[in-house]
């Protein structure tokens, strides 16, 4: 079953459980579930035991415990961990120097008492939407292990969905938090660009990279987000803003104006994705569908900027170590390094225009809704996905509904919906031929309004429209999940 970070921390603070006992349960869960799902790259039990012991010692001495005391968590394999090589999902980085210190956000979690277990599988260098890593294997979807977990933070989403950890960190350049959150059925937050520091995080495309948390409940997500906030001068893009804590059970303001994004976001969404948005829209009182005419342009701009920035970043070693790079993405990276400068400049200018256009929309409404992925999780190894009768490349296209929004840096909370289930019973719809699978809906707000995204997510969770379900796929069978 999934885990609650808030509950664990409360138990540890009260003395109902020791942090070391929680860690032992995490060890048991990982040993039982990870051999099938392949979420973890590495687990550092020594460090985890040190951190858990420190928490238990603090309590034994009567000292106050921090907010996430004893909460186990893990991070995508591109966050610096002191003394370890940051591999960013690639064997080409095996010879790199060990990180001298923890990434800024890892240090924040440690200061909050959380216990780091290890690193999680990903698409190499975060360039992919499926977590089918040739060198480390595919991460499997906890709700149907024949299917992908999404990517590039697939290990993070699947580890939370399968209950191995209550919290995980990922990164999102074009959708790498929102896509796996959607396909694995967990909550994921991509904050405003610049909200969270990326110091000590292996970069992909600097002008698009974000970090953010995954969790099995909105309260856990908000607790992690509040912990991760804070200015950091070491990341030039990190906003020098004070912490704007959301807190537990954020309430949705009265009179909040909600609209569904149409056009691009409807054309490239199948029936399940549209049904998920309909349910969320009904619950939030969405009154209208609005168009963002430059959505496709923003997606195209993100594609070109990502290719150029990522290609430039890796070009030196692509020239010398081509064979060590991920076969599924190395040719895309090289192609990116060949993009003409005027295409990139035009993409950046288009980005400005697209941003101005969506800000105008967000002056008229408070929240915009869109599917997070065009479809539910495709099978591992799928080259193509079918969207409304059109076959397109799976690995490049699962993020086509997330890319426009990250291109303009807006905050998004992805919430899990189960469109294949009957709303009232929580069971697979009558006549369903396949297990119900989750799909995410993006709750998009104006810059710096993560509080609104999380308040809407909390409302949906309270109403039962969105929920993280316990997978029953530990043995590889696929069974319709049941309501928690």
């Amino acid at each position: 079953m999934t885990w609650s970070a808030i509950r664990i921390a409360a138990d540890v603070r009260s003395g109902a459980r020791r942090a070391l006992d929680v860690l032992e349960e995490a060890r048991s869960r990982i040993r039982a579930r990870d051999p099938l799902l392949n979420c973890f790259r590495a687990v550092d039990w020594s460090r985890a035991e040190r951190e858990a012991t420190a928490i238990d010692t603090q309590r034994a001495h009567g000292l106050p415990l921090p907010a996430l005391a004893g909460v186990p968590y893990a991070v995508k394999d591109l966050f610096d961990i002191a003394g370890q090589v940051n591999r960013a999902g690639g064997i080409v980085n095996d010879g790199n120097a060990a990180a001298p210190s923890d990434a800024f956000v890892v240090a924040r979690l440690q200061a909050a008492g959380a216990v780091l277990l290890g690193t999680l599988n990903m698409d190499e260098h975060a360039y992919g939407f499926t977590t089918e890593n040739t060198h480390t294997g595919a991460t499997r979807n906890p709700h149907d292990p024949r299917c992908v977990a999404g990517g590039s933070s697939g290990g993070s989403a699947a580890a939370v969905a399968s209950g191995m950890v209550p919290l995980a960190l990922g990164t999102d350049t074009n959708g790498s938090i929102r896509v796996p959150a959607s396909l694995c059925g967990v909550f994921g937050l991509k904050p405003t660009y610049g909200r969270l520091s990326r110091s000590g995080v292996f970069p992909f495309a600097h002008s698009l990279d974000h970090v953010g948390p995954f969790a099995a409940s909105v309260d856990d997500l908000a607790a992690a987000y509040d912990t991760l906030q804070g200015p950091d001068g070491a990341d030039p893009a990190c906003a020098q803003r004070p912490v704007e804590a959301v807190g537990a059970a954020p309430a949705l303001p009265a009179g909040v104006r909600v609209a569904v994004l149409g056009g691009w976001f409807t054309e490239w969404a199948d029936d399940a994705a549209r049904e998920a948005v309909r349910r969320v829209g009904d619950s939030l009182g969405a009154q209208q569908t609005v168009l963002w005419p430059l959505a496709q342009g923003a997606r195209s701009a993100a594609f070109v900027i990502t290719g150029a920035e990522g290609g430039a970043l890796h070009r030196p070693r692509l020239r010398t170590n081509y064979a060590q790079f991920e076969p599924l993405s190395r040719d895309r990276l090289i192609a990116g390094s060949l993009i003409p400068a005027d295409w990139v400049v035009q993409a950046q200018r288009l980005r400005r225009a697209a941003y101005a256009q969506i800000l105008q929309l967000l002056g008229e409404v408070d929240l915009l809704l869109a599917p997070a992925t065009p479809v539910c999780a495709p099978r591992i190894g799928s080259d193509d996905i079918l969207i409304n009768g059109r076959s397109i490349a799976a690995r490049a296209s699962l993020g086509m509904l997330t890319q426009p929004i990250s291109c303009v840096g807006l905050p998004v909370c992805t919430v899990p919906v189960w469109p294949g289930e009957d709303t009232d019973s929580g069971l697979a719809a009558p006549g369903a031929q396949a297990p119900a699978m989750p799909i995410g809906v993006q709750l998009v707000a104006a810059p710096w309004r993560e509080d609104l995204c999380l308040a809407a997510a909390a409302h949906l969770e309270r109403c039962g429209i969105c929920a993280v379900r316990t997978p029953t796929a530990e043995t590889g069978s696929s069974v319709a999940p049941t309501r928690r």
Partner: protein
Amino acid sequence: MPNGDVRIQAYVRAALALQGYALDEAQAGAVAEQFARVALIAGTFVDEPLPPGADPLPVFRP
């Protein structure tokens, strides 16, 4: 700019040489295929007229 377009093939091979890559023919062909996809997407906006105020943003700050 469809895959296999002779301009794409020529551009990719020239740019690979300029950037210092030493790929074999199959590898260069695979890069050209990916570049054709980028070109197809870029082709939707590279000639789009934009207002003068739409200045580029090297580091994006919303």
